[in-house]
């Protein structure tokens, strides 16, 4: 059952055009021209209860704008949004009770209060019953290790601690839906891993629907089965991550170190796209030729000292999709 429905969603911003020069400055005092910027143009998708979806796209693609329309902060220019049966911008306060939001770039806790007091304030704001509050606090404290900084003012927390506090705060009122906007930004490897484990757990155990925007493809790979890829305010891809990997993941790179340094290497089914002294980078399609076949060809004329076979990271697949579009991209791509 869809818990989030978005249809033909559009959001335009009017940006004041800045005139250059003295005359321009005087002119803009009287009359200012505006340019329409379409941050989101015609996006539709629906998300089912309990799904964990990666919502990704390059900077300025319209990710945060979409999230902000789902939270009710922004009013769409046209199109419809429904979150748990509620139109967010028409009924912000009701919608607020159904959602938890974490913005990696800014805290939503009260800057100068001890962390625990922010939690207590949220308990009042969302009218969380005492028992529920205590239960949640115990769970979050255990998994996220909140007790080490509960009495520290938020402004003195490290980024990792702040993120942990923020995500716990967003879940205190048991929202069925959680929006995570770059929840791992700026965290170190260990902290990132902890954050991912926590997100995975709450998604599984509480069947919370999660929408995750991020620039870290590892987040997506480790957490989501489905991704919605947007660019220039439009949807580029919506489906399983495995499908994308399957479609574009046929490319392999064979890297060989030879004992001698030949001027060139001619191979059937493989393309040398980079060479450096005795090291060669060879791209091939896994369906057309096998790595062992290529290796056999090479050993006919040369001695191999060392070799590795690499498969494309989702990251490079996606950056190619950004550059060339999903449909236009050949299946074996230069990655």
């Amino acid at each position: 059952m869809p818990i989030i429905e978005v249809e033909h969603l559009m959001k335009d911003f009017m940006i004041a055009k800045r005139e250059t020069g003295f005359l321009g400055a005087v002119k803009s005092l009287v009359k200012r021209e505006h340019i329409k910027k379409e941050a989101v143009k015609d996006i539709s998708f629906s998300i089912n209860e309990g799904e964990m979806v990666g919502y990704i796209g390059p900077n300025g693609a319209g990710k945060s704008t979409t999230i902000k329309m789902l939270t009710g902060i922004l009013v769409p220019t046209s199109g419809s949004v429904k979150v748990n049966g509620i139109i967010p911008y028409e009924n912000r306060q009701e919608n607020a009770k159904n959602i938890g939001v974490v913005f990696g770039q800014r805290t939503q806790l009260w800057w100068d209060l001890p962390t625990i007091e922010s939690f207590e304030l949220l308990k009042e704001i969302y009218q969380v019953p005492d028992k529920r509050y205590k239960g949640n606090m115990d769970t979050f404290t255990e998994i996220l290790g909140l007790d080490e900084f509960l009495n520290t003012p938020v402004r003195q927390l490290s980024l990792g601690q702040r993120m942990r506090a923020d995500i716990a705060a967003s879940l205190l009122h048991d929202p069925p839906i959680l929006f995570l906007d770059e929840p791992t930004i700026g965290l170190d490897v260990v902290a990132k891993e902890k954050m991912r484990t926590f997100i995975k757990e709450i998604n599984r155990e509480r069947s919370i629907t999660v929408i995750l925007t991020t620039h870290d493809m590892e987040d997506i790979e480790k957490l989501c089965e489905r991704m919605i890829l947007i660019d220039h305010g439009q949807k580029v891809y919506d489906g399983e991550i495995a499908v994308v990997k399957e479609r574009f993941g046929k490319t392999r790179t064979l890297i060989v170190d030879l004992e001698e340094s030949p001027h060139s290497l001619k191979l059937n089914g493989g393309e040398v796209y980079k060479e450096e002294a005795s090291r060669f980078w060879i791209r091939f399609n896994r369906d057309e030729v096998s790595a062992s076949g290529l290796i056999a060809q090479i050993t006919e004329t040369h001695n191999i000292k060392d070799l590795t076979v690499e498969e494309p990271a989702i990251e490079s697949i996606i950056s190619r999709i950004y550059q060339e579009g999903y449909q236009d991209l050949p299946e074996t791509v230069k990655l």
Partner: protein
Amino acid sequence: MFRFRLYWTFTKKAFLRSAVYRFDVWSRLGSNLIFLLMWGSIWTALYAGREEAGGVSFESMLTYIVVSQFLTGVNGAGTPLWEIQEKVRTGDISLELMRPFDVPLRYLFADFGSVAFYILTALLPLYTVMFIFMDLTLPSGWETWALFIVSAFIGFLIRYCIEMSFGLLSFFLVETGGIVDVFYFAMSLLSGSVIPLWFFPGWLETMAIYLPFQGIYYIPNAIFIGKISGAEILLSLGVQLFWVAASYLLLRFVWNRASQKVVVQGG
């Protein structure tokens, strides 16, 4: 449904938060005192040894200045205009739209907390001492005290609604310097906070009487020193109530427009 407990929590938290910023309390009290001394000396010089001017005795005038500085302290302890603008600019206020509470009310109740802290720890001790050791006019009966407190509270609400409305204009304007100037001009001159309305030239007095700002400083102060008395007090309170309703409607109007027009930085 008004959830008093929720908003009251903001009052409590803001009270506690103020305790964190002790330096802020002391520095604000310091500047409050400096202004008090300044206005006290200016008015002493203006009276030039006369017992009375404009139908008001020197003692009453001095009381007016002291009470005015007290009210300045009270009104200045809330969220100031620049901070509201800052919160609009950084998107802090916009983000609060996704909380299940009413944003203007939440700030009002938080202000109650910080103002209460400032009154209890700084203003009240200082001004009690001042009233004990200076020759000032005190209201004769408890009714006048009560009416003064009610009037000062309504004045606080008028000031809050106007200041918040002005602050929220940042949603619509990129440059707000002019707005700030207008606000502070009205707040200091037209409110009668530094010069009582009875010293205004006729046309300015008429103008001030038809504006809401006199309800913030002049009316409570005039009640305190007995310049307004009897049935006149009720009339003045009526005027204040009218302005608190009007400025509340203004705030609601600006807030509704602003929350439809939210632009949060970022893609």
